[in-house]
């Protein structure tokens, strides 16, 4: 009875340790969770997958046969995103987004677009009711 | 699911998790109290071989 209890406890400990190691390994690959547009354009020749952060430029969203195409900006640089699939619920002009994917091949005009297959909306830590005068509703990802 | 659905789900899950936990403590306490009153008189009973 006592021996069994000890083994169950040690088993749970082992599960916890394995889970923590697994989580740490996952995290080590995500230390830089996203790159800003300016940082991303510096590695345009790379094939690596990463997350690109920027605000959706109003007036650039267009539906494509496989999803949506739009531009994102960090205020300094702007790039075109080709997204496969449906954008999330809160996707709209001006929304701060993280697009997960990789750079595509350079087009005729010479600049590659970013091929994304997952869009996440990054929210700020400010909360306001709708009728209050809002200065900025979309905060650009910082850092 | 709509936004309202997520909100309702969050309240329901909170109620289930916290209510369930509080209930578990209450039940275990009742068992511990019950055993405690049963256990002590059980010791002299064992002498007669009636117990168990």
């Amino acid at each position: 009875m006592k021996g069994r209890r000890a083994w169950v406890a040690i088993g749970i400990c082992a599960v916890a340790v394995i889970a923590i190691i697994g989580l740490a390994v996952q995290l080590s690959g995500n230390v830089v969770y996203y790159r800003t547009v300016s940082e991303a354009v510096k590695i345009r020749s790379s094939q690596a997958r990463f997350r690109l952060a920027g605000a959706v430029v109003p007036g650039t969203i267009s539906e494509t046969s496989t999803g949506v195409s739009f531009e994102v900006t960090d205020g300094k640089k702007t790039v075109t995103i080709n997204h496969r699939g449906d954008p999330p619920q809160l996707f709209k002009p001006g929304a701060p987004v993280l697009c997960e994917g990789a750079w595509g091949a350079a087009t005729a005009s010479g600049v590659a677009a970013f091929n994304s297959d997952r869009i996440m909306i990054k929210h700020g830590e400010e909360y306001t009711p709708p009728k209050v005068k809002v200065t900025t509703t979309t905060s650009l990802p910082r850092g | 699911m709509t936004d309202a659905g997520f909100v309702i789900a969050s309240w329901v899950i909170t109620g289930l998790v916290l209510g369930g936990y509080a209930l578990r403590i209450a039940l275990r306490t009742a068992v511990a109290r019950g055993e405690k009153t049963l256990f002590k008189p059980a010791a002299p009973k064992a002498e007669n071989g009636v117990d168990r």
Partner: protein
Amino acid sequence: MSEKINNRDDRSALLPRAVGRVVDSLTLVSIGALTFFGLWASPADVVQGDAQRIMYLHVPAAWAAYVAFGITTLASLLWLWPRTRSAVWDRVAGASAEIGLIFTGLTLLLGSLWGRPVWGVWWAWDARLVSTAVLFFLYLGYLAIRAVPAEPIVRARRSAITAVIVFIDVPIVHFSVNWWRTLHQKATVFNPELNPEIHGVMALTLWIGVVAFTLLYVSLLNRRYQLAYLEEGLEETALDSAILQRSGGVK
């Protein structure tokens, strides 16, 4: 053995019965108020809409988890310090850690339910979310270590040292959003500038949530402590009778 007897403290409850009742009632009232303010009285957020209401549970749950683990650490230190060593602190540490684990699990569940509508994903491998999951498993491990049968004093020392070590993750969780880039937003209320970026009824609702969950924590801790005391008594009675039987004292 004599060390164990000195260590025995017969405080059967943390709070006097009347105080416990008051805390229980205040807990229920504040949870009612939180539900009213969270679901009806507070306005929907301009960006997130109604989904933002999940914050009124998610943030207080995370806060209560921090408080619970803080108390576990404090109680463990008080047990380790020879002058204040008492079985009371060992029970408080264990009880508080279990409640903290429940609140951490709840925080993760609520965060997932909030993330899906507003981020577009249930989960993200960012530093805040992963360090919180690590926190969950650290305290699960702590409770498992507590469950390994041993002499009470050995078990208490082992647990206290573990508790102090695993607490390191709590500040990591809290500051992860400032130290690393995350999908998760930064702290709204407990931010480094101590300048909450939330106003009016929304701020009030969040504060009601924090108060409600803190009261709930105290109420649960009081009950869980009492249970720990009762179950310890049972173990001792069982042990005593086993010793008696083995030595032929009963038969």
